[in-house]
């Protein structure tokens, strides 16, 4: 990891993390986290691995609301939430991203219309849907981040569009993301003479899952990202654009092994570059998945 900082400790990685925050791959669906609303506060011991140690407090507050609309035509969910997280050392100690506040809103729309139940034997019943084109989601998130001493501050924003229809085998489950970072203040950037302009990344990801007969299934996960407005130092590191593809051929089984069940044996090949890695890499994988099914 490159260092640009002027202070010891985590200062330089903090900048790197802020830069990469815009480069993160498709995030989880903008929705409510498990547990939803929660407030937590507790003592914390902090070690910055560079000799700095301090006692502090860590706190978080999450509020999230989901509105479920089950109407027959285009049932939908609206998610909106806010979250604040902070780790505050009781003595002076620089930490990366130790203060965060974010807000998000998202909609999931089922592209379906339920048909009324006309009775009759289930095996002879017509489709329960007048149409079914899968599901669509749009979401957005804004986030403010700051270091403890407010020397490094940034605002992040991102939007995403998702669509999936498992009935159309050739159509990928799709994620489009656009994330951007606007540094508000940065002593490190000022020292380096780096322009605090908005920089961001556009990402597209496609996922296919195709059964091959009864026992085999093929998974393909492909992604491409493109950065804009990035600092030269980031672009030179190869983090401005790249592609990635991972394929996985799995044998679906259901064999008891002791107290668990062997569910899947797979062989996979991955090639390409993740947005947070400037290098192209390739790898073969061979593995098995176990479950605790009843």
């Amino acid at each position, binding site marked *: 990891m490159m260092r640009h900082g002027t202070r010891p400790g985590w200062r330089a990685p903090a900048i790197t993390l802020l830069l990469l925050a815009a480069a993160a791959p498709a995030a989880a669906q903008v929705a409510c986290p498990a547990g939803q609303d929660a407030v937590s506060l507790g003592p914390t011991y902090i070690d910055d691995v560079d000799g700095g140690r301090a006692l502090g407090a860590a706190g978080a507050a999450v509020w999230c609301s989901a509105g479920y609309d089950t109407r027959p035509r285009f049932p939908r969910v609206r998610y909106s939430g806010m979250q604040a997280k902070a780790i505050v050392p009781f003595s002076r100690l620089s930490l990366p991203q130790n203060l965060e506040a974010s807000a998000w809103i998202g909609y999931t729309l089922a592209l379906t219309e339920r048909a009324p139940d006309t009775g009759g034997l289930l095996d002879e019943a017509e489709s329960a*849907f007048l149409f079914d084109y899968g599901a669509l989601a749009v979401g957005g998130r804004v986030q403010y981040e700051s270091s403890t001493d407010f020397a490094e501050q940034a605002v992040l924003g991102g939007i995403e569009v998702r669509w999936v229809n498992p*009935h159309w085998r050739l159509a990928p489950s799709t994620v489009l993301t656009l994330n951007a970072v606007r540094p508000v203040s940065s002593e490190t950037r000022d020292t380096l003479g780096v322009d605090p302009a908005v920089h961001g990344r556009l990402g597209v990801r496609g996922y296919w899952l195709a059964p091959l007969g009864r026992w085999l299934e093929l998974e393909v996960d492909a992604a491409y990202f493109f950065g804009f407005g990035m600092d030269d130092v980031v672009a030179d590191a190869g983090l401005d654009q790249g592609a990635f593809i991972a394929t996985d051929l799995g044998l679906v089984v259901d064999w008891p092994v002791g107290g668990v069940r062997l569910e899947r044996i797979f062989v996979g090949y991955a090639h390409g570059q993740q947005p947070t890695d400037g290098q192209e890499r390739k790898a073969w994988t061979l593995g098995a998945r176990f479950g605790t099914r009843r």
Partner: protein
Amino acid sequence: MRNADDEQHYFRTLASLLQDDHLRRRILFGTDSWMLRMDMTESVYWEYYRRHLSREDFERIASLAPREFLGFPGTDGGALRPNLERHVRYLDANRDAFGAAPAGWFQEITGAVSATKRDPADWSQWAPAVRCTYRMCKQYMSSAQVRGGYRANRTTRLSELTYYRPRDPNFGLLVDTLALNLVGCSEDQGAPFREQWTRPHAVERVKSALEDGTMQLVELAGLLDSIFRFEEPLV
């Protein structure tokens, strides 16, 4: 029984009554068992009597006497009693209206052969919870599962349906969609929520089950039945 003397007295008296030709035809096992279910299960009750009665006496009160009481012929043959004959005639005349296979004794007496299999009580296709579960999930079944028919899919696990692809970055959307339609279908039936359930709680509980994937379809129907007060609840 808590008192051993009472127990001995009870079974000694019962055994002597069962020696009487007239009385033993009128002693039927289990007629007050519903009261005792507050204290014990049927199997405990059954085993208790089997242990304390001779095999012949137990057979008499648990099988022969009830058969006779209902109007079936005895072990030495004979005809149905008039009350049961009338019942058989009625059933035979309305055979097509049963909606399920007739009992074995009826088929034996009338020679009726039914291709219909009885639906399990917790997977009756006429129960709204089952209909919603099957109709909403059917679109995520493989062609082989659909060919198997509704009865065969009673024990299909959620993880065996095509929506269950947890490595899909949009798995959450699929779960949302199916949960909304399962709860929405139940609401379409006009069923109100049971006490302490609201729509958000219901959708989130169903989502949790869909994400987990270990539940069988019959259990999912049971979950809907526990959330909604359907006009025709599951047994």
